[in-house]
């Protein structure tokens, strides 16, 4: 705190380059657009979280006597739609990715700044349609829009919700396109491919998935809308369609979408581990290529969502086998992170707590994914809480842990100020404890046979459900705390200085917050990523 009186924020930073709503809503600065995204996704996170509160409250009693079964269907559907399409998918790429990508490669901005702003507007327009669907009676198909229910039976607002996600898809495609072109064309002199931070490699792989996958789900949702509105026979067997075709097309995107959520998070973890162990990432090249490996293999496994949906057993065998292969690049990352920590000078700052949490929770999420990829077990636990627990371990325990870790790590760069470290550490522990208490009981519930998407259950499942609901309330506190202390630190936080962590990486070689064009002069890179000095014998961080 004492140093804050001496230090001052740099006067020419991007936050002070223009004031008023116009300077934000018409900006072309990737850093400001990242903050626009940050505000938007935080809003949708709160809405999606509110639906989760409804779900957990209703499940506190076996009779499901808080809401009707119809309302319950809408609660879990809109929780899924909001969280998946409007929070998790843009969470890391559109905020931290947008902010850091040009900074990390030494560029002045993304390749197409106006397209970047357009992608935010497209995202907001898509979200308006989906918000309208919530107001217009809600959606009850599940976030997966399975046919023929969604096209022939559901009486809820399928059209606006589907259109909203269709529109939102273009925002994703444009962001991916922008990232790929920027990484190819705008690296600073000397920033070769194998000097790129792993965060950039992860975003490159993610962008490939965004560009190749998103059009398929967009077209699929158009077909749902066409069948629902104009009765084309595509998916509904009553008019000559095939419902499993929908699942093929939907999961061709939506399984890789899981990697859109988790790959950028893995990129964050690589940065955090290197910075707080003061070491070059062990097996840099392997970690870089494992991102591309996950992106490619991720496209070949979608059939594992349909083992019990009437898919051919031969196709199921192939999909099951390839699903197991995804474990290889994932494990390469996890083992290389732990190997990096070995003999590193580990500093237990808040971002590192989140990184450690990520590694543990993602490992559980990933390994239970192998259970589900085994056809025999999958038949037993399909559509049970085991699946729910599995994907929350990957998406919440993985993506959100890394997102929060990254937000803490780069907050001094974004705002120029430090967050309260002690409070942040407490919040990180609360998130970890609350998360496990919420979702671990769900593994047991699922294994015992409790189906997902039911609002009532046999009384013997109540203890585990109450544990889960209690955990959710702890988790909520863990998520609310950072919102408050980040807001507090914007005004009262101690001035961070350009490199509070003593980290390497181009983003720390400019002021915090950076000027609008990022660097006073274009940096020339003559060093490898994570080139930390060899730890001195007996050095304590």
């Amino acid at each position, binding site marked *: 705190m004492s140093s804050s009186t001496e230090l001052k924020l740099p006067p020419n930073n991007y936050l002070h380059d223009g004031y008023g709503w116009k300077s934000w809503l018409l900006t072309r600065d990737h850093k400001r657009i990242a903050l626009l995204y940050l505000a938007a996704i935080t809003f949708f996170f709160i809405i999606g979280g509110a639906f989760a509160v409804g779900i957990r409250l209703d499940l506190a009693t076996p009779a499901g006597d808080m809401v009707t079964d119809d309302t319950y269907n809408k609660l879990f559907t809109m929780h899924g739609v909001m969280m998946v399409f409007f929070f998790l998918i843009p969470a890391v790429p559109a905020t931290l990715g947008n902010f850091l990508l040009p900074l990390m490669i030494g560029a002045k901005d993304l390749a197409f700044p106006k397209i970047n702003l357009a992608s935010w507007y497209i995202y907001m327009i898509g979200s308006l349609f989906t918000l309208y669907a919530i107001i217009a009676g809600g959606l009850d198909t599940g976030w997966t829009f399975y046919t023929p229910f969604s096209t022939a039976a559901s009486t809820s607002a399928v059209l606006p919700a589907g259109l909203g996600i269709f529109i939102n898809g273009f925002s994703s495609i444009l962001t991916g396109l922008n990232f790929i072109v920027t990484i190819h064309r705008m690296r600073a002199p000397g920033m070769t491919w194998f000097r790129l931070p792993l965060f950039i490699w992860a975003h490159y792989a993610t962008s490939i998935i965004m560009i*190749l996958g998103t059009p398929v789900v967009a077209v699929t949702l158009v077909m749902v809308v066409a069948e629902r509105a104009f009765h084309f026979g595509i998916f509904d067997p009553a008019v000559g369609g095939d419902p499993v075709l929908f699942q093929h097309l939907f999961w061709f995107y939506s399984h890789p979408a899981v990697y859109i959520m988790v790959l950028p998070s893995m990129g964050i973890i690589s940065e955090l581990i290197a910075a707080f162990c003061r070491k070059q990432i062990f097996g840099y090249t392997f970690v870089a290529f494992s991102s591309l490996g996950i992106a490619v293999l991720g*496209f070949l496994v979608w059939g594992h969502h349909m083992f019990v949906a009437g898919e051919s057993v031969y196709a199921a065998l192939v999909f099951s086998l390839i699903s197991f292969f995804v474990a290889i690049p994932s494990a390469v990352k996890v083992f290389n992170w732990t190997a990096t920590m070995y003999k590193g000078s580990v500093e237990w700052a808040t971002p590192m707590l989140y990184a450690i949490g990520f590694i543990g929770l993602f490992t559980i999420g990933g390994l239970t994914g192998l259970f589900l990829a085994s056809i025999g077990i999958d038949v037993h636990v399909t559509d049970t809480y085991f699946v729910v627990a599995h994907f929350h371990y990957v998406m919440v325990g993985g993506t959100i842990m890394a997102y929060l870790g990254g937000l803490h790590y780069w907050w001094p760069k974004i705002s120029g100020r430090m967050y309260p470290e002690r409070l942040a550490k407490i919040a990180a522990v609360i998130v970890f404890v609350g998360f496990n208490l919420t979702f671990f009981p769900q593994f047991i519930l699922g294994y015992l046979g409790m189906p997902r998407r039911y609002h009532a259950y046999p009384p013997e499942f109540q203890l585990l459900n109450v544990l889960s609901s209690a955990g959710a309330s702890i988790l909520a506190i863990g998520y609310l705390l950072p919102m408050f202390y980040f807001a507090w630190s914007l005004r009262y936080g101690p001035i961070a200085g350009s490199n509070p962590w003593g980290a390497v990486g181009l983003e720390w070689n400019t002021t915090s917050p950076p000027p609008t064009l990022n660097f006073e002069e274009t940096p020339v890179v003559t060093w490898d990523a994570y080139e930390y000095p060899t730890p001195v014998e007996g050095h304590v961080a």
Partner: protein
Amino acid sequence: MSATHIVPKKIYFAVFAALMVFTAITVAVSFVDLGPLNTVVALGIAITKATLVVLYFMHVKYSPRLTKLVVLSSLFWLVILLVMTMGDYVTRDWRTYGMNQPHSAPYGIERTIAETVNL
């Protein structure tokens, strides 16, 4: 590499004429019943037309190799989608456990089960 390649108008008109001819062929062929070849011919003509559009109207023929790689890899991804989806549809009836077609069940034991169930 980034210099704009000017395509002579003649080529554009030739490609346009080819597209029109293919359209006429599509319409003409739809009046002839070719049996199982109906879909093959229709898709074949469509693919040829799409290739012409991509190569000439979208300038991929005159683009750097990286652009060609991008186009080819996206096409490859479409092939993944189609092949693996068809992998399900084509093999779905291979193993019916004798339930649907008791006389074509591939394995003796299943046939016995099927007969037991049916009779």
